[in-house]
């Protein structure tokens, strides 16, 4: 993990986790993008040998503890979403950035729905359409995150 500047990957994931628990005003809080998922998707697509389902599970588990949800819910959702990327990384790499953004959106929607379904199964939560608002911001954010992380990867020549 730490050879070839692998520690930078961990740092980006840590920043993503901070961004996802940082307090925001109530009006924009519902639109908070899925920072951790988006960063995981990029790394899994770029370096599937280093970041894969296990990393995703661990990150999701950390989120579970930080957000106070039932242990394993975010972990499972994150692992399932990243599994799809890990399985198709060669295809996704060849798409244009906007096509990738749409795929990220679909994955983010899947992530939120898995979290919702599991919560629904365990405690009786009701569905609000606001649970899917982050998908929109995640799609918009993808190109920026993509170019930024690519720059980071090339600059530190992470392999």
């Amino acid at each position, binding site marked *: 993990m730490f050879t070839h500047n692998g520690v930078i990957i961990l740092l980006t994931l840590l920043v993503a986790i901070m961004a996802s628990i940082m307090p925001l005003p109530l009006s924009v809080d519902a639109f908070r993008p899925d920072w951790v998922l988006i960063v995981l998707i990029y790394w899994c697509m770029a370096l599937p040998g280093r970041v894969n389902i296990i990393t995703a599970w661990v990150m999701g588990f950390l989120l579970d503890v930080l957000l*106070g949800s039932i242990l394993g819910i975010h972990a499972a959702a994150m692992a399932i979403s990243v599994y799809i990327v890990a399985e198709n990384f060669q295809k996704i790499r060849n798409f244009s950035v906007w096509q990738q953004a749409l795929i990220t959106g679909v994955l983010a929607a899947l992530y939120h729905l898995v979290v919702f379904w599991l919560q629904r199964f365990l*405690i009786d939560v009701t569905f609000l359409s606001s*649970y899917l608002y982050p998908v929109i911001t995640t799609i918009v954010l993808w190109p920026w995150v993509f170019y930024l992380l690519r720059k980071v990867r090339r600059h530190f020549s992470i392999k």
Partner: protein
Amino acid sequence: MASFESFRGYLQSLVSPLQYLANTPKQAMTWASTNIATRQQLMTENQQFRLNELKFHEQTMQLNIVKQENVRLRSLLASPLRSELKKMVAEILAVDSDPYSHQVVINRGAGDGVYEGQPVLDASGIVGQILHVGQTTSRVILITDISHAVPVRVQRNGLRLLASGSGQIERLNHNFVPQSADIKIGDLLVTSGLGGKYPEGYPVATVSFVSSDESKEFVRVYSTPIAKIDRLRYLLLLSDAEPVSIFAPKSKQKKLDAQNKAKNKTKVTH
């Protein structure tokens, strides 16, 4: 089950540096805004506080007399005296939580004597109870959470109800209220002390809606929490018994349990 709770406690302790770190920008902003205040602002605030202090001072004097009177009357009735509750002030760490549940993180943990199930208040009423305890932070579940309920009674007539969270910040539900129940909009609901988690007599909510459909078996009753659930900053933790840390060795816990049992027995024999 107990060992799993302590496992979760360790996890909570493990991630608390992250939570403190995520809280720092907000803290810096608050520090800046409190430090950059004009003299005029400070003076008006100071005056306001002086007035408040005067008012509260007068109320305390009255309260002392009422307290003494209450003790005397209770001893006349030969009913058990109420013990003073220990209080601890905690501040909310501004970190985000799961959108599916209503929780907040506070800056006190097992190291400060916080224990699971401890009741949490703000200046105006009941806020919730401690859910998970870490070494330096803990998590509070709010009364509006969908998996939480508080035993309450109507202050006006002592009618017992259950206030369960609705998942919405401004509403509590009351299920299984019979049609014959005497309940009106504006009634104050206070904790009843049943269930043993919350001490008796603290305000919880005011009734905001009572359905008048008499064809139904039960009345639909909603109420609004009195505590400003979405504007919390400082919280009060109450404790009466000697708290037991989840990180404490098992023997200590057993000893305390034994003590409690002995206490209960003596009460029964009285």
